[in-house]
């Protein structure tokens, strides 16, 4: 079955090119445009309400503060008050700066470390799964287990493993207080996160590996390339598109990390507080203005990273560039070359 997946895709991409002119012609049938907009608009409407509205509303709300505060003369001011970019100034340079930058660096650190580890481990797992002939079904089943476990449950599970009397300390023969020591709690969060998601990266990379034709490897072996050289010069470049997309998804997911440190270590712990946790903590204290500002800053950070990543590494997230109708012969030729590579 594992070999089925790439086969069907090859068949599919083979069909797309000859089928394309026909598809284009059927597209010009009158009424298709109207049908398309009727079919697409419900999704866009829902996403406008649950995604677009909140993003804009957060930006708007971050310009206000609510609740009791003292004005310049020392009088108590009640209710909502427009402060412009004042909240952002407080966060970036003012009294809230220390907590914000701490959360910012925690988020960045967790993302960088976990995604790197996941990419390396996932790559290794994919290579093993690709080579494995015996126990393939077992591996595939077990790889899905960490993915299927709810993050909340896995956080509890790792809190138990990292408990003072837990099995981690017993195996290491140490008395580490994982939940209170700064470095130790970071390690605990990273371990739990990598455990849960590295197999998922492995699955995505494996799918990429299976598309590489065996002939390429055989040709390189005949030419005298050793296993290591084949990995660096054939496997890695060819699997790069799949790996890049997997890493991008993981990065964006790690940047919004919340459940794991929240349950595994706890709220308002400097050592593991992420931007999501900071915004949540402000929102539950009814500090909507600062909470909205933190949420907006996190959104901007995520958008920036996604943009830079897609621009720099050319992550072909939607796969559209390759499955889309070629504009002209040259484009089709390039596409053909691309898939034969």
């Amino acid at each position, binding site marked *: 079955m594992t070999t089925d997946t790439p086969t069907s895709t090859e068949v*599919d991409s083979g069909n797309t090119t000859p089928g394309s002119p026909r598809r284009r012609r059927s*597209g010009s049938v009158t009424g*298709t445009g109207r049908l398309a907009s009727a079919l697409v608009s419900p999704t866009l409407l829902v996403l406008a309400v649950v995604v677009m509205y909140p993003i804009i509303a957060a930006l708007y*709300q971050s310009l206000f503060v609510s609740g009791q505060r003292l004005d310049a003369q020392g009088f108590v001011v009640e209710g909502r008050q427009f402060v412009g970019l004042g909240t952002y100034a407080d966060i970036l340079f003012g009294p809230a700066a220390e907590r914000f930058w701490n959360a910012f660096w925690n988020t960045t650190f967790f993302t960088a470390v976990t995604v790197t580890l996941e990419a390396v481990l996932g790559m290794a797992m994919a290579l093993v799964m690709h080579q*494995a002939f*015996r126990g393939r079904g077992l591996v595939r089943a*077990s790889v899905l287990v960490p993915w299927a476990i709810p993050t909340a449950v896995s956080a509890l599970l790792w809190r138990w493993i990292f408990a003072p009397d837990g099995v981690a300390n017993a195996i290491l023969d140490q008395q580490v207080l994982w939940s209170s020591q700064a470095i130790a709690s970071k390690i605990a969060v990273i371990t739990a996160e990598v*455990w849960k998601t590295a197999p998922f990266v492995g699955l995505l990379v*494996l799918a990429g590996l299976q598309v590489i034709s065996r002939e390429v490897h055989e040709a390189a072996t005949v030419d005298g390339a050793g296993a290591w050289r084949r990995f660096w010069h054939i496997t890695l470049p060819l699997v790069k598109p799949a790996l890049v997309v997997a890493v991008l998804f993981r990065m964006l997911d790690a940047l919004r990390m919340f459940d794991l440190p929240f349950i595994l270590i706890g709220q308002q712990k400097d050592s593991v507080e992420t*931007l999501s946790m900071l915004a949540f903590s402000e929102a539950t204290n009814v500090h909507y203005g600062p909470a909205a500002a933190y949420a907006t800053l996190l959104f901007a950070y995520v958008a920036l990273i996604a943009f830079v990543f897609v621009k720099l590494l050319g992550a072909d997230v939607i796969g559209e560039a390759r499955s889309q109708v070629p504009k002209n012969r040259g484009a089709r030729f390039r596409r053909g070359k691309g898939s034969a590579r």
Partner: protein
Amino acid sequence: MTTATGDERRTTRRRFEAKKWLPILGVAGIVLYCLAPFYWMVVTAFRRPADQYDLSPLPRTWSVENFRAVFEPGTGFGRALLNSLIVASTTTILTLVIGTSTAYALARLAFRGKNLVLSLIIATSMFPGISLIVPLLRLFTDIGWINTYQAMILPSLSFALPLAVWNLTMFFRQMPQELEQAAMVDGCTPGQAFRRIIVPLAAPGMFTTAILTFILAWNEFIIALSMVNEQNMQTVTVAISKFTGATQYDQPFGTQMAAGVIVTIPLVIGVLIFQRRIIAGLTSGGLK
């Protein structure tokens, strides 16, 4: 391809005996890595509460005391399971109803701005949940939606809908174009071709999408945590995180692990049964 694989294996085996057991070792490593923590959860759940800190690989005395404690009246765990079921199923159904037609249009119809729409939908799935929750929390407070199912279901669509549209688009793209053409030659309009021909044939793809969506919605935490503050409206992930259990221990790990097992086992069984479909669904994005 199979013969080439066989030949290669045979020559390799003759050359290096070590290469024969190296993959097996790798496989064992992966299985151990993935299952050991899960195993530990199950084993802890089956110990007696008094043996909680016992670190033997198997319980000395098997007990279901922890499971009984999970359903103790004060915990509200049964109600939480029901809430999760309601929220996750409604999210899944809504997602499929809304997403299927959109995915069909994106995969099969030619219209202007198609790529833009698809990119936009994919992009929304990457937005951090907290950025959506903070303003929605305020909105739902104003309109009295706190502690309601819709306050959890509606925000859940923000991650479920893009995933479903994406998966179904990939699935529709793989179906032969001739299906609609034949239907239209026989006099169907594009709309009829979609309803009468495509939807029945798309059942497997929709089923896979339903499983993935359900698992994601079931595992959701931050939305349910923010939108609900009454115990009887909590979903199971939130209930489990606030679990203090019914035993006298300050950290009732045994009870927590038992609750974890109850929440996870249905998912694990489902995943094992549908593993091929799930992997195909998960990797359809990375493959293209």
